[in-house]
């Protein structure tokens, strides 16, 4: 919660010296509160005030970045409890677990799955984010070797998991340049693991056995200057872990309680032995506030729906997802196949293309850029009307792909059929169904 202008004003010198460029300190304070001025413009503000203002300006849940370059994962930085209040900011990272006691083929298989299981959807690449290497062998050399193998075989972000600082140090030797997440600092090893994190500029996960203890540990770390912190409340029963996530988010946002204002890490892999149930538990943490979700393994049948769920929940409610404008071939259409047109709201595209697919009638689907608006909204806003549809139909090249000249428009845009016949000389405009569910029946009776 940022300070108000009045609260900032109280911290300023109140001399109205005008050196900042504003007529009064109050005016300057108001500009600061609105984010339109820099505190440095005031030559007389004290260091103490600076620190206070910086502290107040910090986001209630700090963002933390794990990994580097293209694969860097930013988590945290959330500002709301419910997505409709603004939006969820940084999608949670999915991590696959690799134990250092696993045989080589098993490790190779996991890395291969991590690297291969990537999916394209509406022009976006959906993929998992992290590999967690866990020290189960108790042998720092073995741990280091496995971490090295992970590093050599993937560009992934890495989580180093051990309660032994020496083992973590061994892992860091090979992958510090990847900015791995160190998991975990606990009460017993706090200082040493914090030193490792500081020395290697890596983020650090803290694990406790209760929220109170967790807050105590993060407070100590913050005092010691550690900033990039991820928190684990230690709960491994689903109910407790779920409630912890809600309490952490809400105490950080509504009470601005800094010691819990960090991204979280959750372990569905430690809550059940059933991979199906584990996936379902993970889906809960996607919606309810997990920042890093560690899974025992990745399989397409569970990772794919999780990645799509994450995409859905983290979609900005104010900015609908849009599909690229163009001609889409569904099935293997030929010169006698039907031609349909719709808008580029991605949900509309998914439903319409899904129904065409279900009809098993190969078709061309023209997707017109309507800035992500649905058919009715786009029509009402003048973005899906004869004047805009006609030039697109002419330019998209569909006329060279089919012999006939029949264009099926959505039932909700029926009012445009007259205008379109005028603008598109030679084309017959056919009004399709209003509801996508009726497309298969419509197409089955369609004749070129």
């Amino acid at each position, binding site marked *: 919660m940022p300070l108000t202008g009045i609260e900032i004003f109280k911290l300023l010198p109140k001399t109205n010296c005008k050196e900042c460029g504003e007529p009064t300190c109050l005016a300057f304070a108001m500009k600061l509160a609105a984010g339109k001025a820099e505190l440095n413009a005031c030559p007389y503000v004290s260091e103490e005030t600076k620190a206070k203002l910086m502290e107040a300006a910090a986001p209630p849940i700090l963002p933390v970045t794990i990994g580097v370059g293209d694969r860097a994962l930013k988590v945290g930085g959330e500002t709301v409890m419910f997505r*409709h209040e603004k939006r969820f900011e940084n999608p949670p990272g999915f991590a696959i677990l690799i134990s250092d006691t696993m045989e080589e083929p098993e490790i190779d298989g996991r890395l291969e799955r991590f690297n291969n299981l990537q999916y394209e959807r509406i022009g976006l690449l959906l993929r998992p984010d992290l590999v967690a290497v866990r020290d189960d062998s108790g042998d720092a050399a073995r741990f280091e070797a496995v971490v090295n193998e992970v590093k050599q075989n993937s560009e992934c972000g890495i989580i180093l998991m051990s309660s032994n600082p020496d083992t973590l140090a061994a892992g860091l030797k090979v992958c510090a340049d990847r900015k791995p997440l160190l998991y975990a600092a606990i009460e017993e090893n706090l200082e040493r693991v914090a030193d490792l994190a500081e020395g290697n500029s890596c983020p650090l996960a803290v694990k406790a056995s209760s929220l*109170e203890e967790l807050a105590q540990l993060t407070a100590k770390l913050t005092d010691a200057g550690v900033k990039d912190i991820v928190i684990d409340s230690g709960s491994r029963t689903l109910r407790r872990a779920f409630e912890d996530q809600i309490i952490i988010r809400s105490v950080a946002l509504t009470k601005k*309680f800094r010691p819990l204002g960090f991204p979280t890490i959750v372990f569905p892999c430690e809550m059940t032995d059933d991979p*199906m149930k584990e996936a379902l538990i993970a*889906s*809960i943490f996607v919606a309810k506030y997990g920042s890093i979700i560690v899974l025992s393994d990745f399989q397409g049948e569970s990772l794919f729906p999780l990645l799509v769920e994450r995409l859905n929940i983290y979609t900005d409610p104010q900015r609908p997802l849009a599909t690229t404008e163009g001609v889409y071939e569904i099935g293997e259409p030929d010169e006698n196949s039907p031609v349909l047109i719709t808008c580029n709201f991605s949900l509309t595209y998914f439903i319409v293309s899904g129904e065409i697919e279900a009809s098993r009638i190969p078709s061309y689907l023209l997707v017109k850029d309507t800035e992500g608006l649905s058919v009715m909204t786009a029509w009402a806003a003048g973005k899906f009307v004869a004047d805009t549809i006609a030039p697109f139909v002419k330019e998209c090249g569909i006329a060279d792909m089919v012999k006939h000249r029949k264009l099926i428009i959505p039932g909700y845009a029926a009012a445009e059929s007259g205008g379109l016949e005028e603008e598109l000389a030679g084309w017959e405009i056919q009004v399709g169904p209003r509801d996508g569910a009726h497309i298969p029946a419509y197409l089955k009776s369609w004749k070129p």
Partner: protein
Amino acid sequence: MVFEIPKTAYSGKIREVKLGSGEKAVTVGGETCYPLYLFEGEMPNLPKIAMEVWDMPPQDWAEAALEPFAGVTDDPVAWAKKCVEDYGAEMICLQLVSTDPNGLDRGADEAAEVVKKVADAIDVPLIVWGTANHEKDTEVLRKVCEVCRGKNLIIGPVEEGDHKRIGAAAIGYHHTVIASTPIDINLAKQLNILLGNLGVPDELIITDPTTSCIGYGIEYCYSVMERMRMAGLTQQDEKLQFPLICNISKEAWKTKEVHIPMEEDPKLGDAKKRGILLEAMSAMVLILAGGDVMIMRHPEAIKLVREVIAELTAS
């Protein structure tokens, strides 16, 4: 370090609605907190699952969804009994697919006869779901109300365009109505008001916010349902305090992603498990948003969701 756990300022409660009759009647709703926020309030009736039965053999179901019902999909009575006896269904939802004017277009009398047979064969509450075609649903559901008087069926979808005639039949023969609106909190509230004006008692209404599954706009349903819960629980909006029902399985299982065999796209993994998870996860997400009744299909998806609800509410 001690800190105070913030508590949501609740001022309302979701209505309790009793579905069905007799010993196996099911009560839904009654929450005094956000879904599963048991540290803040109570959820006296946990989310319930109704198993889906079709009144005609499904033509385009994925193999994985058909398998558990092999041998009974051409007989709605046997199918419903199998759900109750073999899979422990707490409720049945009979989808009147055969009445679709764009499909088989089966008549009202015949459809109502099937509903009656199913209702007589089971002792758990029966939800009857039409085709959302106003003229046809009016015809069919009115007949169903009449033929099944005394059964306290749950009938829908009742939309603004057909609420008067179906609502009147529901009042007359004492059935619960499913007030259905297209993913919009204001329309949902308006329909609930209209039903109230018509004389449908509050205890005979549940709300269908219209739901879709993961990958097909679930985020819209999720946020609309969250807003409904917020309005009902924290803003004393009495017309948004009805339990929520989600007809989710038919959405999940018609997506192209559940129909793609693993051989065609190995990265999508096992087709059966993928379908089950897509259904179970979609249901779970909607339960987190406030769903009280989930209409589901695959017994394994149902089992998973039940187990996870049990863990989320374990003391």
